[in-house]
C-alpha cells in the first residue's frame, strides 16, 4: 500500500538554501556566503558592525550526586551592557544542559540545532542519546565551520546510562571530557573559588552554594559578567533549576553592611 505522504511534507522548498534545515537535519544547514575574495576581512568587518554579545562566566562540575551547572546573565557589546537577563544555560532536553559563552546567537542556534538532533536520535534509535554522543555531534558541526568566525565555548552537561557526564566543546572543534570546567572572561576568578572549595563528596546544597559563590566572585571582579547567577543541578531524574539570584543582592548577603563605630563624628557646618 503506497502511503500518501504529501500532507506530511514540511514547508515547500521555494527557497532552496533556507529550507535545507527543515528537509535534511542529518546534514548541517547551508549558509549563504558573501561574494567576496577576502572572506576573513569581510567577516572581521561584519562582526565589528553587528557586535555580537559576548563576555561571560559559566562553570560546571561533576560531584558525587551529579553535575552542577551555573552561569551569570550579562551580555555585553563592547562596553555597553546589552542585556542583564540572558539565558546562558540552555535546556537541550530534560536531562541535558548546555552553557553559553562567546557569541550569543552562535550558541543559541547551535544548541537548538543540537536539541533537534538529540530528539531525532531518540526517535531513530528508541533510546536517549548519551552525553558523549551529543557533545560529539556538536563538536563535529563546529569543526566543519572552523575558521569561519563562529565563537562558541560551551559545556554539555547531562546524566545518561553511564552516570553524570561533562564535556567542554569550542568553536575550534575542540572537545574535552572533564570533572570541572569554567568558560568565559570571568572564568579565572570562578576557577579560583571553585578549585579551592571543590570536594568530590559534597551534598547538593553544598555544591550549589560553591557554584553560586564562584559565579558571584567572577561577576564581582569581571566587568563583562553580572546580572543573575543561575544554578542548575543535573541528577538521575534530569535537570532542576535550584536558584536564580541577582548578584547585587548576593553581595550584601555574603558581605552584609556592619554598622561601624565612628572615631570622630562629623559636625554639620552652618552658614557658608
Amino acid at each position, binding site marked *: 500500500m503506497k502511503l500518501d505522504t504529501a500532507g506530511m511534507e514540511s514547508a515547500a522548498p521555494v527557497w532552496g538554501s533556507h529550507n535545507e*534545515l527543515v528537509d535534511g537535519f542529518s546534514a548541517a544547514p547551508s549558509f549563504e556566503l558573501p561574494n567576496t575574495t577576502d572572506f576573513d576581512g569581510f567577516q572581521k*568587518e561584519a562582526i565589528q558592525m*553587528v557586535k555580537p554579545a559576548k563576555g561571560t562566566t559559566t562553570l560546571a562540575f561533576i560531584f558525587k550526586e551529579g553535575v552542577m551547572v551555573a552561569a551569570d546573565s550579562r551580555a555585553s557589546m563592547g562596553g555597553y551592557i546589552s542585556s542583564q*537577563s540572558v539565558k546562558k544555560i540552555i535546556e537541550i532536553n530534560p536531562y541535558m544542559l548546555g552553557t553559553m559563552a562567546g*557569541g550569543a546567537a552562535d550558541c543559541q542556534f547551535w544548541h537548538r540545532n543540537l536539541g533537534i538532533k538529540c530528539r531525532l536520535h531518540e526517535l531513530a534509535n528508541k533510546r536517549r542519546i548519551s552525553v558523549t554522543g551529543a557533545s560529539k555531534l556538536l563538536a563535529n558541526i563546529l569543526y566543519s565551520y572552523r575558521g569561519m*568566525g*563562529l565563537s562558541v565555548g560551551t559545556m554539555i552537561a547531562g546524566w545518561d546510562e553511564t552516570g553524570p557526564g561533562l564535556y567542554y566543546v569550542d568553536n575550534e572543534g575542540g572537545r574535552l571530557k572533564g570533572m570541572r570546567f569554567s568558560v568565559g572572561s570571568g572564568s579565572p576568578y570562578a576557577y579560583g573559588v571553585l578549585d579551592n572549595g571543590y570536594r568530590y563528596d559534597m551534598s547538593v546544597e553544598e555544591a550549589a552554594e560553591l557554584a553560586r559563590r564562584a559565579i558571584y566572585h567572577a561577576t564581582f571582579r569581571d566587568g563583562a559578567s553580572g*546580572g*543573575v547567577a543561575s544554578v542548575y543541578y543535573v541528577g538521575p531524574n534530569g535537570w532542576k533549576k535550584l536558584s536564580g539570584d*541577582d548578584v547585587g543582592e548576593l553581595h550584601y548577603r555574603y558581605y552584609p553592611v556592619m554598622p561601624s563605630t565612628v572615631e570622630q563624628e562629623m559636625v554639620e557646618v552652618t552658614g557658608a
Partner: protein
Amino acid sequence: MPKEQANWSPYDNNGGSCVAVAGADYCVIAADTRMSTGYNILTRDYSKICKLADKCVMASSGFQADVKALQKHLAARHLIYQHQHNKQMSCPAMAQLLSNTLYYKRFFPYYSFNVLGGLDNEGKGCVFTYDAVGSYEKVGYSCQGSGSTLIMPFLDNQLKSPSPLLLPAQDAVTPLAEAEAIDLIKTVFASASERDIYTGDKLEIVVINADGIRREYMDLRKD
C-alpha cells in the same frame, strides 16, 4: 605599490530608534520615522514598523534595505504557515522564526536590529529583542537603534522589571496601564530626539491589545 582596500561596503546605516514595551494585556511598539544616510536625511516619513501577523509587530532599525528584505521574507514564510496550518502564527513562534532567519545569514548578516512585540496565546504582552545575527530573548521592554544607549537607561529606571531568570519566578511585564506606557514612550522619544541626530521628525506608535491593532503619530523635533 601600496595595497588597495575595497571602498565599497554592502551595508549602510539609516539610523533611527525603536522601542517596545509589554503590558499585562497590551503591547506598545514605537519607532521614529526619520531615514538618514550619513549626515543627510533621506525622508522624514519612513515607517520602520511592520505587521507580521495578527498579534505580532516588528520594528527594526539599521540598514533599511536589509530590513525590507527581512520583512518580505518573514511575510512570505507567514503566508506559507497560514496555508499549511490554517491559522495565524503566534508571537513566540514568529520570534523563533525571526531568530532562525537572521542566523541563516550568519556569514553575511542582515544589518537589522529588531524588536518584536505582540500578544502571546494567553493575551499577555510580550516583547522579544534581537541582535543582528539572531540571538533573542523574551523581555518586558527593549529598545534598539541609534538612540538605544540613550533610551535604555531611562526605561531601566522607569520600568525595571525583575529578571525572568530569578527563582522564584516573577512577572516581567510592566504593571503600567496602556495610556501610561504610551505616555512614557512619547517622553522617551522626545528626549532621545534632543541628543541623537538620527532620531526625530515623527514618532509612530502601534498598540496591540485584545481589541486589535491601532496606530498613533506624534511630532518630534525636525532638526
